[in-house]
């Protein structure tokens, strides 16, 4: 193949899929270490070792609460983001079904929110899926317009995992407060999935006016299988898991002490560093897009403009490369040690392209050619330069194989029918 760059003698591993999951921060690992084999006792144990584990658990809870501007007793430790979302949605729905069976969410939520909602539909709940604009944003107006007497829960993500859209959570929260006051009711509860936002955005629950908030460890350089559901005092939900009654009876099962310690440490660290890291990632991301724009023809930016973290998560870049298919690009990039993800149907279980891109009004052929790069701590300008050494050539090669030439005369020229 002409001009196809030779594979490097030493493959560089460039991880650009931080929205999928992150590596563990060394400091987090260190904080967790003692809790596997040394301080391993069950925190429910009354003996010294148990008390030691319990006290570690308590200080982790305090730490998390502090970041959220909340009281420690509002933090429920769970097995991760999906579990927290499920607990919030099923928990609220089961507890308050007799008050109403209407829930509002958005079309671009994570499946950890959408699937529980679909299950509730089967049980007779009515779910309103709010549409988004082409940048993936919902309007506060549309939330207001869809509020009903029987709305018991609103679940809207803080930052989107695919295109990085940041939702106006605080504004929506204020509107919900107004509604409750007018109607003299405690409904609807307001839940946000903040898994993607936790590393970059302010998590103060008083400023956000949320009643329930999901965060997990595996997106913030913390451990997998550990997360929280914040639950405001006075907000009532049913548990998903019954047993020994841990976590105020809302999440039974012996606490994952090392995971919880790691989660708290990770959250503390990302929140402490977020200002500087946001700036660094934003600059790197914008540099990446500038390079792509100049070196590859027929590319399109998906999601919001590349503004600061009030508009778009600073580590997120989502593009569509026309005339080629996402999985094919992914396989090639993987050969060069470059890791990212795609919204193409070929990588999904259902063979449908990304529901997020489609909800933003992207044509299917654009969604099939989408690539998501999510940057993180370890990425440097050298990483981006390495990617740009190969990505344009990979696109060229796949375009050479492709009969699709969107918007050009050449496309469909050979149809013989």
């Amino acid at each position, binding site marked *: 193949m002409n001009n196809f760059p030779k594979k490097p003698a030493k493959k560089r591993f460039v991880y650009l899929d931080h929205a999928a999951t992150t590596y563990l921060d060394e400091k987090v690992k260190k904080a967790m270490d003692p809790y596997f084999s040394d301080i391993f006792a069950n925190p429910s144990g009354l003996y010294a070792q148990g008390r030691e584990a319990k006290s570690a658990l308590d200080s982790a809870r305090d730490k998390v609460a502090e970041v959220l501007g909340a009281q420690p007793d509002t933090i429920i430790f769970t097995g991760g983001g999906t579990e927290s979302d499920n607990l919030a949605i099923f928990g609220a729905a089961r507890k308050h079904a007799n008050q109403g069976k209407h829930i509002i969410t958005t079309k671009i939520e994570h499946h950890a929110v959408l699937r529980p909602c679909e299950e509730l539909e089967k049980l007779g709940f009515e779910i309103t899926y709010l549409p988004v604009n082409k940048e993936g944003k919902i309007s506060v107006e549309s939330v207001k317009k869809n509020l009903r007497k029987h709305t018991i829960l609103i679940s809207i993500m803080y930052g989107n995992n695919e295109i990085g859209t940041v939702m106006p959570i605080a504004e929506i929260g204020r509107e919900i407060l107004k509604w409750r006051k007018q109607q003299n009711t405690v409904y609807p509860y307001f839940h946000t999935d903040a898994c993607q936002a936790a590393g970059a955005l302010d998590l103060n629950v008083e400023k956000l006016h949320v009643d329930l908030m999901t965060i997990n460890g595996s997106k913030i350089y913390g451990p997998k299988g550990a997360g929280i559901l914040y639950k405001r005092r006075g907000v009532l939900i049913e548990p998903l898991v019954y047993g020994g009654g841990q976590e105020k009876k809302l999440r039974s099962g012996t606490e994952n002490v090392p995971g919880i310690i790691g989660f708290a440490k990770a959250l503390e660290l990302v929140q402490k560093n977020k200002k500087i890291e946001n700036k660094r990632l934003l600059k790197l991301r914008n540099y990446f897009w500038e390079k792509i724009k100049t070196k590859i023809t027929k590319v399109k930016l998906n999601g919001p403009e590349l503004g600061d973290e009030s508009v778009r998560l600073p580590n997120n870049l989502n593009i569509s490369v026309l005339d080629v*298919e996402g999985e094919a690009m992914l*396989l090639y990039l993987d050969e060069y040690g470059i890791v990212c993800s795609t919204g193409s149907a070929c990588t999904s279980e259902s063979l449908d392209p990304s529901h997020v891109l489609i909800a933003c009004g992207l*044509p299917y052929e654009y969604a099939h050619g989408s690539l998501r790069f999510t940057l993180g701590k370890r990425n440097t300008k050298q990483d981006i330069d390495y990617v740009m050494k190969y990505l344009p050539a990979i696109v060229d090669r796949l375009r*050479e*194989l492709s009969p*699709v030439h969107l918007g050009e005369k050449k496309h469909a020229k050979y149809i013989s029918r």
Partner: protein
Amino acid sequence: MDKEEDDKTQAAGIRDTSGGNWLYSDTVREHFFDPKNFMKYDEVDTYQADATGRVGSPACGDEMVIWLKIDSKTEKIKDCRWQTFGCGSAIASTSVLSVMITENGGMTIDEALKIKPQDIIKRLGGLPDRKIHCSVLGDKALQAAVNDWFRKTGQHERIVTAGAKIIDEKLNITDKDIEEAVLEGARTLEDIQKKLKVGVGNPEAIPQIEELIRFYVEKYYA
């Protein structure tokens, strides 16, 4: 996925999330990273194909074009070129198909028409379950090209109009649509109806639909 399907997946212990079963065989990788016989962009105008077939669309995620040179006396395929928009297995399927029909002096048209998606899959050393539709598309592109040749040589009686039997008249849904739906993952009447609404307002079509589902599931997944 409906409950019944969930239960089946659980019972069989099938790993059905993305992440499972993504391994491509060495042959798939070989044909993906070093594709054979593809049509170069500037070669198209000078190639002088005897027949062309195009299937799919970028909106469905796959599109293929096949060009053939055919010896009109022996009906052997002398040469084949292709272009594919699609994932790794779609590209590999077309590439391997182009080799299969031209190797050893080339297949005759009748031989080539006998190639089934399973033959392509076998030659590739297998494809992940979810990727089987990619090989089907290659097969269809070849069929479209051969039909093009029949048309150009005035052999209209030989044009293959396989299937395309109308199952639900109200919705104009054919057996081909049901085949597609099965390839996209539908396994039960409910799945099919979710996708196509076939037979919903036309219950007398249901036994036939169920039979077709069984037929295609067996054909591709047995």
